[in-house]
């Protein structure tokens, strides 16, 4: 008997209960972008504007292909995401409830762009704000995705908060009107 058969045989045929409904969704009554900004800042993230380009001037930058139209051609220099100091991505959505970004991978987006560089700059279209996690989950891409909520962090040493332990210690979000 294979392990698969052994396990399936050992499992009882349970009661045929009805699948429970998903839990009630929280209500967000305030302005969604305001809530997003508040949550993001509380997690060590930063809201930036178009002037962020100046801060990129002397840095090695990885820029996902679909984020490039938002930036002048001078900023995206490196082709090695491991060596980049800044990773620039275009987020699918921002979630107001938790200050999260929804990022999916694709032919134009590297999974490591939001992870390997010490600074992550996410561009989000102003129209791409969602209220809750529930709204985000039903819109997820079928490709591998990630919800990013603030900076990489650890509190393993005596509960002391350290940012940027493996992933980015700085997360900048630029809300674009384009």
């Amino acid at each position, binding site marked *: 008997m*294979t*392990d698969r058969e052994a*396990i*399936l045989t050992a*499992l*009882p*045929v*349970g009661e*045929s*209960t009805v*699948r*429970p409904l*998903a*839990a*009630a*969704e*929280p209500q967000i009554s305030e302005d969604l972008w305001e809530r997003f900004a508040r*949550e993001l800042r509380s*997690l060590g993230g930063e809201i930036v504007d178009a002037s962020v380009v100046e801060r990129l001037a002397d840095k090695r930058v990885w820029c996902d292909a679909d984020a490039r139209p938002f930036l002048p051609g001078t900023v995206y220099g490196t082709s090695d*995401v*491991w060596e980049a100091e800044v990773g620039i991505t275009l987020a699918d959505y921002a979630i107001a409830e*938790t200050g*999260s970004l929804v990022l999916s*991978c*694709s*032919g134009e*987006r*590297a*999974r*490591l762009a939001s*992870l390997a560089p010490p600074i992550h700059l996410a561009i989000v279209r102003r129209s791409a704000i969602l209220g*809750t*996690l*529930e709204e985000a*989950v*039903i819109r*997820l891409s079928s*490709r*591998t*995705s*990630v*919800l*990013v*909520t*603030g*900076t*990489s*962090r*650890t*509190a*393993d*040493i*005596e*509960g*002391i908060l*350290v940012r*940027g*332990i*493996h*992933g980015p210690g700085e997360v900048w979000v630029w809300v674009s009107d384009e």
Partner: protein
Amino acid sequence: MKRPPAEAYARSLPQETTDSVRSASVLKTQARVDTLAAAFDAPDDARLQAATIKDYVLDHLKDLLLQLEERCTANGIHVHWAKNAESARNLILGLCQEASPEGGVIAKAKSMATEEIHLNPFLEERGFQPVETDLGEFVVQIDHDTPSHIVTPIIHKNRRQIAESFAREGIGEYTEDANELAMRARARLREDFRQAKIGISGVNFAIAETGRLVLVENEGNNRFSTTAPDVHIALMGIEKILPGESDLPLFLRLLAGSATGQKLTTYVHLISGPRREDELDGPGTVHLVLLDNGRSKVLNGPYREILRCIRCGACLNVCPVYRQASGHAYGHVYSGPLGAVLAPALEGVEKLGHLAKASTLCGACEEVCPVRIPIPSMLLRLRDEAVRAGAVHDPAQWGMYVQGATHPWQWKAGLTMLPMASKLPHPMKSGWTEFRELPSRQGRDFRRWWHDRS
């Protein structure tokens, strides 16, 4: 007299360890309350809802596993089944040898399932070098220690001890600066991520409807381990299924809130399969290993509800015994109230039933549990089973009590003898008299007083 091991261990702990564990657990317990109160209008309703969903999963586990297998396969994930730890270890070794016949570095993300099957030493003996990449697990590994908490593995260590370990291993000059220690670990482990051909992780939730694996974390090492290497091997207990993605928000909020007092963990990685042809990075191969290792047996028995557990660690943080004794006292991968039920349920009451004694039955664990597992009543049942199985020495010698209470003449004879008892050496007393004097009898005999009262 034989003591329960947890008690003996707690007595032997240095004060600084007890201090570390207690202060960290107290902080987390408070953060949990604050976060859940803010996240839900009615946190108790949310917990009940989560319990109902997990019960549904347990009721339909067979169908959901088959659905998960089908959807994962369609997504390009190779699904394997392992009935026990040995089978899982050999299976994973085979996958590793296929991916990298010459051995080498494996990027390990934190996973209790891999701890449960003792995977690291097994792979090390066979030419692989599994590197724990979570900061806490990294410290555990360089110290040849074991995690003492399922979420915060080095809750038992303070900064000075960690600093000494880093210095001993030659990871820079001695420093107690937490930020500096973390950055050194970052630099060292970054090289391992680039070098590793294989990444091994656990799974927090597997979605049956979509065949997607959901992994949560704060550091980013889990994303690295499952993104950078060519081959990703994920090991999950068969109970870790959720029916659909619509169930995720509730569980993500409850897990983050209960585990660390966060609204959401920094990263929620939703893995849909290996790198697609047009994608720029990600593993070319993804394996999912479904581990039974006693779970199907638990599902058929009286401790079934322990399989609702989502491994948040809230019951550890709130438990007065855990706070005093720390996780190592339980002598098992799963510690605290959760472990005191899960460990004997998985591995047998005869072997681990004594863990049920490591509890005051105060009920705090059930109150904080995000899936409302009735841990205290399970512990009571386990104690009964453990005594019957002879796994627990009965220190109060209730057998004598039962004999007396059911035979009145023996009871009376016993009472007549009792005044002498305080003068006799007796093994029953030694636990008490080790640290204090047994008080001598005061006043008159109750029965005589009752008889003479008029």
